[in-house]
């Protein structure tokens, strides 16, 4: 059994980061609502930047990968876990939320 509701797709991307975040208080931005998403940033062991995505829109893995890669290229964060709860947001909204979350990050 899994606690993931039927119909959700789970994706995971890990990049090697160069900007260690160290310890920080978790950051939450956005809301889980139609066409929107929630982004949670938490510290993570090691130098990786991990994106864990749960999305209600199935079949867009390659777009998520491109969005995640561009996010990482912009910020190069290390030692961070980014959890995304998506309800069919467009890539533009996803990128905006990710950037908003990083802005809130107090390092």
């Amino acid at each position, binding site marked *: 059994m899994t606690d993931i509701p039927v119909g959700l797709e789970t994706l995971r991307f890990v990049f090697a980061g160069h900007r260690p975040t160290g310890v920080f208080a978790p950051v939450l931005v956005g809301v889980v609502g139609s066409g929107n998403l929630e982004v949670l940033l938490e510290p993570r062991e090691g130098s990786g930047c991990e994106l864990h995505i749960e999305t209600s829109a199935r079949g867009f893995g390659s777009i998520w990968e491109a969005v995640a890669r561009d996010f990482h290229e912009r910020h190069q964060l290390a030692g961070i876990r980014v959890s995304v709860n998506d309800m069919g947001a467009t890539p*533009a909204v996803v990128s*905006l939320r990710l950037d908003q979350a990083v802005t809130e990050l107090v390092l």
Partner: protein
Amino acid sequence: MQATVWNTKVVNRAQRLARAAEALGKNLTSKRVATDAVVTLLESVLAPKDRVCLEGNNQKQADFLAQSLMKVDPQRINGLHMVQSVLALPEHLDLFEAGIASRLDFSFSGPQGVRLAKLVSAGQIEIGAIHTYLELFARYFVDLTPKVALIAAHAADAAGNLYTGPNTEDTPAIVEATAFSGGIVIAQVNEWVDGTTTKLPRVDIPADWVDFVVLAPRPNFIEPLFTRDPAQISEIQVLMAMMAIKGIYSEYGVQRLNHGIGFDTAAIELLLPTYAESLGLKGKICSHWALNPHPALIPAIEAGWVQSVHSFGSELGMEEYIRARPDVFFTGADGSLRSNRAFCQAAGHYACDLFIGSTLQIDLDGNSSTATLGRISGFGGAPNMGADARGRRHVSPTWLKAGQQARAGRPGAAGTPRGQKLVVQMVETFREHMQPAFVERLDAWTLQEQAGMELPPIMIYGDDVTHILTEEGIANLLLCRTDAEREQAIRGVAGYTPVGLGRDRKMVENLRDRGIIQRPEDLGINPREANRNLLAARNMRDLVRASGGLYSPPKRFRNW
């Protein structure tokens, strides 16, 4: 040798009028026809295969006459050739199913587009052509002149003068063509006035051009098409509006413009008194408009941004606000709006320096279309608004700058100095349900094959588009010099769509270095500052408040 008869139309008209007078008897008083005798009137003035304009505008509908036309005996009246701008009501197509009409020339079918496509493939409608509004009006005066026009007005006096109300729309163009070519004009009205104790607020159509007037049992239907609830504007749309204002309106000093309808352009209107004001642009952009009275423009008008607005039609709920702002809107001596679709389309085409609007699909050549499979919808006025006015000769700084960018360094005729209209397509890279707005091949091509059209139904041709604006950036197509550059400029703002992901990254960076592609940060815009709080009104209630209570939204928009 037999002498040529030169007045067959005059004679034919007199015969039809005499037939109507005889059939109506005491149901006809001067020009007034008893409401329940309207089918008799139609059966006596119409003949098979007549060319008929059943006034269907973008907004105002001659709905009672449409329902009445459905009641004529198809044995007597059949094969009519309908020439009308908009197919909005079910009756507009019922006529073809009943055999009363068989041929159609039109501009826009909106909600009837799916059914129209089915009737065409079943052979029940023969389409002459799909026109722009101006094109169809032009043909009213050449080879599609109506024999009978069935129109809608608000009120008539005893003589038959008509007051259209603020939604004058197509009526003057239709009546002009019909009344001056031996045709017959029949009007439905919501109210009678006697002309002595009660008078029309003003005369929009003189009695001399009207043959019959009938009181409709219900006021004519009007659709509030141009109201957008600011509550539904997204932060991505705010971002794109900021880019439009800073990257295009400010860059070219756009003073005279037309906005397509949608949340994208509503966002621009609502950022004028806030974001644009903060950039010091007041008085430098957006002073003269060819535009329906968009409620979203109220805050900009109130903040003193807008000098004039001429309108194609009106908008429900805006009547009292317009009446209170006669310096801005075109109004009669009575105070109410006088709209006119033909003149406003001409204004948008020849006197505006910029059109900005949205679309469903854009291809790699910059061609765009809202045509989708299984629908025949037409484009209304968009192709005229979104086209360079090749006959234009007066200059403005905006027009000259666009023309200079397009022509610099080109030889021969392509380099002859002239201006160009700015035509901006503003789209999010993905529409709802993750439908990409950028495609390798427009659905229009498949639709052409399916419907057997001579040309694919393209709304705005790529060679008329000057800028494509998405959340990823602005592509300035004026500066592109080869098809390959143009393609990469388009891919370069197409985001994560397959077209966008297929970009040549090096070439796109080169285009960015040359200013052909501009990202938000290149314009000094931080996407994280794109916030709904920048909107001068964030919901319908804010719009009402901004209007000082003069704007009265239709019920369906009263969500507070």
